[in-house]
């Protein structure tokens, strides 16, 4: 829920305003003490200017609201567009020369310090009464994660630049930037060769995702326009799409183990630390890319356990919404020194019973023969592969996107 919190309008003198006031004070003193009448006339004009500035610049910001709109999703390193709408709710008076200052900040754990805020200024010439104006800016972030937008400041110097009135809309909005996508290399199927079962028949398929025709249903966001059944759509006056029986070729189960050494422990070498971070990002990007590949192309379903500070299990990811939920979770996943892979595997016991093999993508290497004792037998029997990303074991299957 966005909280509507608007600070009161504040007026501050600009630099030019101080110059103006300085001269005005002399003129006024001269006008009152000596009464040269033209000086009084001139003082009247100057005071009128100041008064007009004060009233107009306050009223300009009054009843002006800003709303921000985000894209449905965004990936790190790929620019996305933020849309700000300034709406003037006043009945008669327009709002001129609005300077809108928006702020973006990456939400990071407190121990990583205060990285500062990136701001951008936009100027709107005029928002007529009872109407709105649109501003757009493009944002490109290097890192996945949760970003905070706002508070946004509105200010104006209109009309005479003697005063600057300003007001802040204090509400902040959060937006999650998904991990960037890499390239899943052709050898990725080797990972899941053992998991494929039955139904190896070759189908003559019309498209990449269709199966056998099953029925009709209402259109949902994300459905391909190719699935629209136009005749029924015309009859029912709403979009109707065809449903197909899905050919589930693959049922994969992965656990991503995001471990990093405790700060100050292990290798203190900067490059090693960088390598570890690199491994974490590689693992996350691989899972994100693989999910997009499998679900996006309808190649199968995926059950993923994410073992970081808090273990999360997302089972049978098949729909676009589930993919988005997984990407949201991956976006905020953080490597932790107390990531417990055994606990994670045990928590996955319930869902792996129907899945023959489990793959662990980890940022550490484990002596499996020693450590497997604590793992449930049912899981142990299905654990097929342990891929240590830090040792580049993922290189044959995945190539990271452009850094």
């Amino acid at each position, binding site marked *: 829920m966005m909280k509507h919190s608007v600070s009161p309008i504040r007026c501050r003198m600009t630099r030019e305003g101080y110059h103006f006031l300085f001269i005005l004070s002399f003129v006024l003193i001269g006008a009152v003490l000596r009464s*040269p009448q033209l000086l009084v006339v*001139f003082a009247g004009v100057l005071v009128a200017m100041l008064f007009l500035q004060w009233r107009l610049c306050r009223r300009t910001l009054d009843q002006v609201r800003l709303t921000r709109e985000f894209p449905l999703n965004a990936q790190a390193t790929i620019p996305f567009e933020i849309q700000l709408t300034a709406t003037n709710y006043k009945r008669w008076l327009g709002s001129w020369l609005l300077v809108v200052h928006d702020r973006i900040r990456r939400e990071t754990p407190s121990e990583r310090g205060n990285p500062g805020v990136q701001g951008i200024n936009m100027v709107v010439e005029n928002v007529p009464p009872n109407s709105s104006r649109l501003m757009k800016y493009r944002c490109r972030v290097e890192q996945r994660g949760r970003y905070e937008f706002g508070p946004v400041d509105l200010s104006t110097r209109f009309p005479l*630049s003697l005063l600057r009135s300003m007001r802040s809309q204090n509400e902040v909005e959060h937006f999650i930037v998904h991990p960037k996508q890499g390239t899943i290399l052709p050898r990725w199927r080797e990972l899941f060769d053992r998991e494929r079962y039955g139904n190896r028949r070759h189908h003559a398929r019309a498209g990449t995702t269709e199966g056998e025709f099953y029925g009709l249903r209402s259109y949902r966001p994300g459905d391909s326009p190719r699935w629209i059944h136009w005749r029924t759509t015309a009859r029912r006056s709403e979009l109707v799409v065809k449903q197909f029986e899905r050919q589930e070729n693959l049922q994969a189960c992965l656990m991503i183990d995001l471990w990093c050494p405790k700060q100050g422990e292990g290798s203190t070498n900067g490059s090693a630390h960088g390598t570890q971070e690199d491994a974490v990002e590689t693992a996350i990007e691989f899972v994100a890319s693989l999910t997009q590949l499998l679900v996006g192309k309808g190649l199968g379903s995926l059950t993923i356990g994410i073992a970081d500070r808090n273990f999360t299990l997302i089972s049978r990811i098949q729909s676009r919404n589930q993919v988005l939920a997984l990407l949201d979770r991956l976006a905020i996943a953080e490597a932790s020194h107390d990531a417990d892979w055994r606990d994670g595997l045990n928590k996955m016991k319930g869902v792996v019973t129907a899945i023959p093999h489990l793959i662990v993508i980890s940022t550490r290497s484990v002596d499996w023969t020693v450590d497997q004792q604590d793992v449930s037998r049912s899981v142990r029997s299905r654990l097929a592969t342990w891929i240590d990303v830090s040792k580049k074991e993922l290189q044959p299957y995945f190539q990271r996107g452009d850094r």
Partner: protein
Amino acid sequence: MQNRVLQRLTFHIGTLAILAAGLISLGQQSGRLLGLVFASVVLSWIFTDWLKWFRLNKFVAYFLMIVGAMFAIMDYLRGVDSQQLYSVANLLIYVQLPLFFQTKTRRIFEQLGIFLLLELVVAALVNDNVLYGLLLLPVMAVGCSTMVLFAYFISSDRSGEAIGESNSVFARFLQWMGSETTIRVNVSGIEVRLNKESEFRPKRSWVAWFAELVPTNLALFLFALGFFYLLPRINTDSYEGRWRRNVVGFSERISLAQVGEILQSDQVVMRLSFRDGTSNRAFAPLEAPYLRGACLGRYEPGFQRGDWSLDSSYSPLASLASSEQVRPEYRQEFLPVIVSILEQVQTDGLIMGLPPFYASNRDDLVEVFPDTWALREQEQFSSRNRRKIEFGTLSFTAGRQSPFTPLLYDVYDDRFLRSYGIPRDGSALNPKLNRELTRFNPTRFRSLLEYRDEVLSRNNVRNEDIIGQTLAIEEDLALSGKLTYSLNLNAHQDPTLDPIEDFVRNHKKGHCQYFASTMALMLRSMGIPTRVVVGYRPSEFNNVGRFFLVRQKHAHTWVEAFFTREQFDNSTIRLPACFVSGAWLRLDPTPPGNGSNAGGTLQTARSQTFDYAQELWGDYVMDMNKSNSDAIFQMFGDPTSNSFASLFRQAEIIFLRLQQGQLIGGFFAPGEWLNLGILVAVGILILIAVAVLRGFRWVMPSWIAFGKRRAARPYISGVVSFPFLRQMLKMLERVGWKRPRHQTLREFVSDAEGCWQANVDRPLDPKPLSMLTSIYYRLRFGEVRDLSPSDQSQVDSCLESLAAHGTSALSRARQARNKAIGK
């Protein structure tokens, strides 16, 4: 875009500089500074801003500014510009010029702005011209336009600016204080860039631009007007204006040379206007009026002098008589005219007048000499530089000024005369005065007597017609051409002769006082009581403002000779019956033409409108001292009190009239229930309540929502007008599912159901949200008009199912999803 605003701003500030220099030049009455600024601005536009051939380096510009300042100081020290303010104006302009030839940045515009503002202040100090007021309007318009453009320039400078700023407490404090400069830090990993279509591009045309400036300037003008007239004044000094440094008026001793000097001066002495005493409308006489000043009876000869001086034996009357104290027959004979004079206070306190006088409504403190009709101010007002005096006169009949000046006895009633102890004896003229006004030494004026005899013999007027003889002399002097009018008095003068004798005998050229003295002496030689009157005969009539502008060059001298009733009866001149004892006959022997004021033709000034505007400017702007400021409020109340007190008093009177039903009568009459005290108390209470409420709302904004309701209202694009849908959305909202603006209803429902399916074990079948949405869409887009019974039952069952377990499931689903994504 920035370039376009910059070009406009440069053009505006150049224009403003030219106008400011124009205002200063107007005060200096020299176009030197204007030319200098104009040339600099045009050259800088062409070569620095447009062709970009050269621009001054910052340090070179500073050097040139110092050189300019030194020039201005040296000018002052050498005495080129004697007045300090002109030197300050020079200094400002010289220092400002190098700035035009620099690359225009914010700093340059700020510096130019300060200099221009100071120049306008100086212009206000060195000007008193109405042109300043007229030019102030375009200056205000261009100034406002410049400042608006400057605001555009500064704002556009920041458009698209991406700043990495500190998030520290200090940075936030600076931001709260309104500082535009932020503490910058390098924020890595986030790049922002403004979309091209959102870049700042002002699109308004010149026409639209000026259309917006008109109301702004109108508001400024009205505010400045109110400020000017409501500002309390503490200074009682009058504005001298174009009458400054004048030595005007006449003393009680006037030499021939002195009048000659006065006649060559163009200085303004007074503004004279008439209005009809009965209708109160402006009155314009058909010929130039004779304004009497000093009335001189004693002649003292001397080398190149010929002094005339006053010899009065009466003490003045302390006040003017009222119109009721004027004899009725006199009132019937003449038109009552109110004379209004605005003049600089003269050295000896003499006031120009047109006798006989009576008091007008104004209570001016003047005294009148009964024998000469001379007006003089009393001591009380001598502290002012300018004065406005009004009095009534009974000297006009049929649009012309009467040639007769009455004796006091014939004008006022006995009671008034007795109150001043003036006896009404049988003789027409006081014997002592008669003796003084007929004093003549024939041994000194042989040629003058010869001239007189020659005129009388030539005209062959009978001896008993003394007035006929007088008129013959007047006509001969004025029209014969033997003596000519001239202000060039460089001819050799004989020191052994009286100047008038010398005038008649030798050089035969002179101004009005020579002619008047000649005639006066001739009449005295004939035993006629004669006196010389000095005053003005203005002929410059302003048709727009209906006033005479009296200048020094309008000074005039003429003769008054006294004749008894019998003498008039024996002549061809008809003396009205109201002149019982006789009258003073005005005689003007000065030849008309050659620049003399004897011709009575009214002349129309060439720039009447401008003169009138200048007069208004002087009256209502330049002369707005404490007394005039108070006078403005006199129309609202008692003139004897100060302005604000009278304003309150008048408000009180209006309220009383309102209370008595004089303003609003009938059913709406306030009557007795309206009490001023209660009204004031209620007003104060309301003000206090509003102040407290506003203060409270400022301190605790969340406690008092009213007044902010509208401001806090979120934008809702449409109104949900279907009750079942409203109910569904409300149920969802209660469990945290609120439709965002970017989602359609179907997308929103699909999202909610997807979340349900993904996170809650309980199957979603049937899907109540989808079903309700489908029904809504069918209704909304006209597929069906009303809900069919089956639809209605479906709606009911869906809402029931939603209420029973749907909302709780959706709530769980939302929580689960939030947990999954870490919210």
